[in-house]
């Protein structure tokens, strides 16, 4: 009986749109209630719920800066049901990453071989890999040795571990970027807005770190890195801040979701085929059930 009362109470609460209505309703209900302790418990529960809801309303508006400025949605060429990556953009983006970002940010889950056929040819990638030194071993004498990189090696890490990274960057850890566009809400748009969104702080805000409105709380340890002309693109594209931002985010999107193009093709194909299968299954089910659904029942009552 108490359970039924609570159920009725909750249903009524969700149906009314203003807290005042709910309050006046349950006070009149309480006057008619003679269930004793069960009624009091319900009253207490509703009271707690309403104050909690009202409490939320005031807190949410006070911490705009804590959530960061809302990010606009850009029309990425690779978005949409059948959108595919702009591979020249991935190539340029990798160049930006290497020259601007790799000094602080690792991308430890990508190997050089992942770039083959996506942004560079095999020879180009082999040459790129050979430029780095990799620690390998132990050899037959039990010692570790260094050798030039191969396709199977992962991208080099700028710091040996997180503590070294924090120490070199004033306590802040430059996160690994391999999955960053999936690891942040609305990641692609967020990273682009962040990189190209360094503005002067609003009046009244001061702080030790750099100001970026899109970063939660606004104080970010990374300075503005994308400056016009910072990189000289191989294909001659003018390297403006926005262009570099778009290219590097395309590269990061690919790094986080290299399977995207194959996934979209598979998805399109299988959703189409399964829809046809659904139509066929629906027809066959109705065909078989038609016998039962067109039965006629005769009630023959003998008085």
């Amino acid at each position, binding site marked *: 009986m108490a359970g039924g009362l609570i159920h009725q109470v909750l249903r009524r609460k969700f149906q009314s749109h203003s807290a005042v209505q709910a309050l006046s309703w349950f006070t009149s209900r309480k006057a008619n209630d003679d269930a004793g302790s069960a009624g009091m418990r319900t009253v207490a529960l509703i009271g707690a719920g309403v104050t909690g809801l009202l409490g939320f309303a005031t807190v949410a508006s006070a911490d705009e*800066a804590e959530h960061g400025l809302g990010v606009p949605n850009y029309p990425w060429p690779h978005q949409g049901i059948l959108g595919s990556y702009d591979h020249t953009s991935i190539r340029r983006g990798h160049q930006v990453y290497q020259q601007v970002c790799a000094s602080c940010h690792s991308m430890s889950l990508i190997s050089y071989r992942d770039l083959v056929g996506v942004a560079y040819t095999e020879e180009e990638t082999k040459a790129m890999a050979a430029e780095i030194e990799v620690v390998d071993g132990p050899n037959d004498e039990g010692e570790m040795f260094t050798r030039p990189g191969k396709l199977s090696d992962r991208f080099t890490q700028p710091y040996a571990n997180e503590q070294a990274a924090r120490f070199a960057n004033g306590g802040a850890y430059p996160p690994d970027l391999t999955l960053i566009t999936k690891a942040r809400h609305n990641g692609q748009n967020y990273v682009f807005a962040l990189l190209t969104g360094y503005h002067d702080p*609003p009046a009244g805000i001061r702080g030790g770190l750099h100001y970026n409105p899109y970063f939660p709380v606004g104080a970010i340890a990374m300075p503005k890195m994308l400056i016009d002309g910072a990189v000289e693109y191989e294909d001659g594209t003018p390297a403006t801040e926005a262009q570099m931002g778009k290219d590097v985010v395309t590269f990061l999107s690919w790094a986080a979701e290299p399977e995207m193009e194959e996934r979209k093709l598979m998805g399109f194909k299988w959703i189409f085929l399964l829809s046809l299968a659904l139509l066929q299954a629906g027809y066959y089910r109705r065909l078989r059930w038609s016998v039962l659904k067109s039965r006629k029942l005769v009630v023959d009552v003998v008085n």
Partner: protein
Amino acid sequence: MADEEPVDQKKYLEEGCKPKCVKQLRSYEACIKRIDCDESGHKHCTGQYFDYWSCVDKCVAQTLFSKLK
């Protein structure tokens, strides 16, 4: 070819979108004036600043990518 410094497309569009967001800009400027005389350090214009940049961002996002390669 005469290669001058390429202009950043986003900055250029942000300048062009300023007239569309004049209301928010004036509101922000009014806030700055209001807190000018405050020395407590607790007053700030983040709200109006966010409103202004939200408006500019929405306007820029419509055409920015068509200007990029």
